[in-house]
């Protein structure tokens, strides 16, 4: 009882803290929309409005996949059809009550969405589009060819029902649709701000970096598709009862395109955008109908033509990376949650070998990365340094040899299992999630060891999900403090200097509480001043007891911070030792350094 009461108090407090102009606006618009049937008495108009409101619900659902996930899904119409057909069959043949039939339709579509998500969870966006396009055709052709589902060419009649004794007519449908869109919008916003939303955004912006931070791509993308399916199914299951008939012709790939266009027209980032986009398409269709009837053109295609033309124009003039900054809320800076001191870990490579197309990129590679020390891996371009990092991080599997953590061999596994074991890698080049804030970048890393909240919990913002969110924000702030960027937490990461972006990447990795940190060329293109900052940060990370392996070109940086240096040439280790020994090694000087000596002077 006490726990429930305190959870409720927390919920109210969080809601009040999170309440901003956009929440007020949502409440006002919802209330106004609910009162609309007092003004609009015409049942036909109301029916038409309600069916567009249901489409808006499906568009809000599609935003999980297209907006948060960055995956061009063309299957939303097909998922809507699944919900519609399940509900139609249950209503017509099973005599289920309307709401139960709708719930069943939504669940069926969520499962179907999940299946699609599993199928496309690991492919790049172009193939997500291809596969979901085929799903749209599979469902459309299947419904047209198999009368058992939707009655074939004649369609399947769905009887009108009652909800709590009230006839489920146009008015009640409109009220239901408005409430569902409002709740759906709240759910989407909750997920977008929460841990799953950030991880999805990370995958969208820089998939390789997100995977290196241990983001579970397949699980998240499956969940995003399942959520999209749930919304679409709910939309279809109610809309089919509004229409009174399940008509296979209504679920052609045109529907999927219309929903996709609506989401893109609205900016593809927020629920309000999806609703606005759907409204825009609705107005276009209405205008097209009026125009067609006044011009005597007998066609329903004019609306599609208008929507397609508008989409072409909108895409041409806008780059999608511009986030709608309307109502971007300034949140209170969270209290830092101190980073945990890592258990000391020792990473070893034994006899690693990797070939690409027959050419050995790395052979007989042995390495020890000690806790609380920085090991540097140097060598000319193409000597196999990055390949070594990728093998250690589990990005690619070796042809021969093994990687050991604390003496026991690591299974050949995904980057996520390695990351969960404490081995985290940052990528070469600047790979921040440019559309996210600095704090959010670090939060993507902080999610690694947090319990999975799941989309469902985030949807309804359970106390547990909110507690996890607080830990994630606190950990991220602590990690940013470690690299000296806590003052820039709210800035867009993509607007920082190259060096600051590298430091953001290090902070994201730190927030993932690594025991071993693999850093790929942290100082590429940095000025002397920046190199000093990076050296300081690397030293601080080492002093936390983390085992650090740095691939680096800048020998000044190596000489300043590394305890041990390993030199690679043409895929083989040619020398290893302290920086001074390496600097004096004639073989190293001949092969790689061309006479230059590693500087061991410390500037002070």
């Amino acid at each position, binding site marked *: 009882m006490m726990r429930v009461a305190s959870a409720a108090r927390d919920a109210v407090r969080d809601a009040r803290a999170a309440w901003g102009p956009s929440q007020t606006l949502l409440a006002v618009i919802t209330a106004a929309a609910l009162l609309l049937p007092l003004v609009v008495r015409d049942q036909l108009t109301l029916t038409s409005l309600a069916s567009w409101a249901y489409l808006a619900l499906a568009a809000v659902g599609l935003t999980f996949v297209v907006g948060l996930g960055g995956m*061009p899904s063309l299957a939303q119409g097909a998922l809507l059809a699944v919900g519609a057909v399940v509900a139609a069959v249950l209503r017509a043949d099973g005599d289920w009550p309307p709401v139960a039939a709708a719930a069943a339709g939504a669940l069926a579509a969520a499962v179907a969405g999940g299946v699609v998500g599993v199928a*496309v969870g690991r492919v790049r966006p*172009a193939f997500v589009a291809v596969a979901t396009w085929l799903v749209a055709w599979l469902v459309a052709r299947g419904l047209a060819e198999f009368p058992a589902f939707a009655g074939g060419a004649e369609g399947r009649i769905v009887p009108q029902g009652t909800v709590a004794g009230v006839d489920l007519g146009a008015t009640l449908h409109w009220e239901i649709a408005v409430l569902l869109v409002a709740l759906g919008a709240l759910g989407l916003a909750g997920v977008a701000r929460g841990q799953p939303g950030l991880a999805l955004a990370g995958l969208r912006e820089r998939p390789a970096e997100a995977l290196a931070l241990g983001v579970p791509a397949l699980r998240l993308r499956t969940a995003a598709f399942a959520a999209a399916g749930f919304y679409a199914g709910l939309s279809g299951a109610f809309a089919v009862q509004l229409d009174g008939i399940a008509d296979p012709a209504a679920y052609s790939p045109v529907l999927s395109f219309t929903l996709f266009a609506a989401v893109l027209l609205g900016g593809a980032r927020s629920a309000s955008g999806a609703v606005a986009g759907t409204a825009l398409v609705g107005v276009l269709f209405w205008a097209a109908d009026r125009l067609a009837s006044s011009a005597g053109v007998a066609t329903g295609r004019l609306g599609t033509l208008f929507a397609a033309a508008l989409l072409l124009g909108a895409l041409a003039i806008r780059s999608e990376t511009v986030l709608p900054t309307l109502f971007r809320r300034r949140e209170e800076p969270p209290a830092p949650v101190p980073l945990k001191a890592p258990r000391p870990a020792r990473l070893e490579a034994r006899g690693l070998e990797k070939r690409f197309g027959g050419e050995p990129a790395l052979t007989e590679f042995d390495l020890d990365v000690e806790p609380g020390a920085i090991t540097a891996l140097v060598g000319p371009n193409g000597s196999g340094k990055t390949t070594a990092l990728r093998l250690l991080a589990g990005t690619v599997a070796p042809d021969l040899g093994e990687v050991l953590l604390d003496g026991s061999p690591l299974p050949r596994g995904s980057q996520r299992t390695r990351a969960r074991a404490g081995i985290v890698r940052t990528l070469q080049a600047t790979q921040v999630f440019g559309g996210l804030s600095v704090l959010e970048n670090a939060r993507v890393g902080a999610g690694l060891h947090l319990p999975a909240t799941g989309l469902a919990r985030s949807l309804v913002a359970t106390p547990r999900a909110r507690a996890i969110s607080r830990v994630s924000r606190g950990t991220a702030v602590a990690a940013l403090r470690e690299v000296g960027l806590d003052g820039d937490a709210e800035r867009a990461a993509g607007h920082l200097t190259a060096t600051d972006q590298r430091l953001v990447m290090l902070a994201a990795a730190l927030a993932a509480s690594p025991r071993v940190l693999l850093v790929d060329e942290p100082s590429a293109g940095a000025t002397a001043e920046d190199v000093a900052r990076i050296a300081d940060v690397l030293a601080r990370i080492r002093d936390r007891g983390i085992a650090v392996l740095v691939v680096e070109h800048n020998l000044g940086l190596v000489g300043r911070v590394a305890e041990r240096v390993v030199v690679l040439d043409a895929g083989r280790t040619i020398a290893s030792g302290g920086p001074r020994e390496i600097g004096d090694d004639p073989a190293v000087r001949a092969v790689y350094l061309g006479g230059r000596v590693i500087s061991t002077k410390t500037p002070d």
Partner: protein
Amino acid sequence: MALAFQVLVTGAAAGAVYGLVAVGHSLVYRLTGVVNFAYGDLVGLAVFTTLLVAAGTGPVTQTSIGGVRFVVALVAGVVVCTAASAGTYLFAIQPYVERGSTIGWVGATLAVAFALNALVALLFTRASYVIPDPLPFRRVGTGGYFAVGDVEVQARAFFVIAVGIALAAAASLILARTRFGRALRAIADDADAASMMGVPVQTLVAAAFGLCGALAGLAAIVAAPSASFSTQTGLLLGVKGLLAALLVRFGSPWRAFGAGVALGVAEAAIAGLTVAGYELGPEYREVLPIGAVLLLVALRPPRQALEEQE
């Protein structure tokens, strides 16, 4: 035996058109990493332009058309399709590829597809159309059909298959033997390097889009009189060509063409197929291949999974 022959010929004739669309999808994917969702409707545009020039938008019979006018119509159809294909690349694909926006080109090519589809449907309002045939196939055999055993085979089908093979050979030859083809292969290999070597990448890719449109458009026009053609037919041709291209992972012209023919034959065969004592029937002919290719994509994801996008 005779039935198998009929299935083979009918299926291969339909599949020859799928095959040329697959050739286009494969080449375009190799060149740009893009799947042109407007391709099917561009092919549909070729057929309907030919119909418009040959006979207008009214009802047509198979015989009501002279040879010269048809040739003019055919050229018009191919030219419009070529230009529209190149335009699709320049305005709906290239800007987004340059920006690195997959959602951009997916949205833009789909918008082109549905805009073309709606435009054609505004002019051609009937459910389906007969495309006139200037060649006198109906005088061959009995009303255009040969009797083979106890089944009949359309004489036209052989012509369509032959034209399909000739066009696939042309595509293959152009890629293998001409300077244009060599430049395209260089672009497919490494567009940046080709550009640095002075290859005018954008112009050549646009030309390749035009060529793909011309080949598939011509094949579709040649095949169109064999059956009725609706505004949805083009859209479906694009999807089936894509299925065939996915089967051979956007392979060489001959492989893509072969996959298209195989898909056509499979579709024709599925209708009469009996699985575990249950006769499948024609309703399975489109659904089964789509499901099978989807399964293939899911179980053996194409190259360049997420990890490789560093």
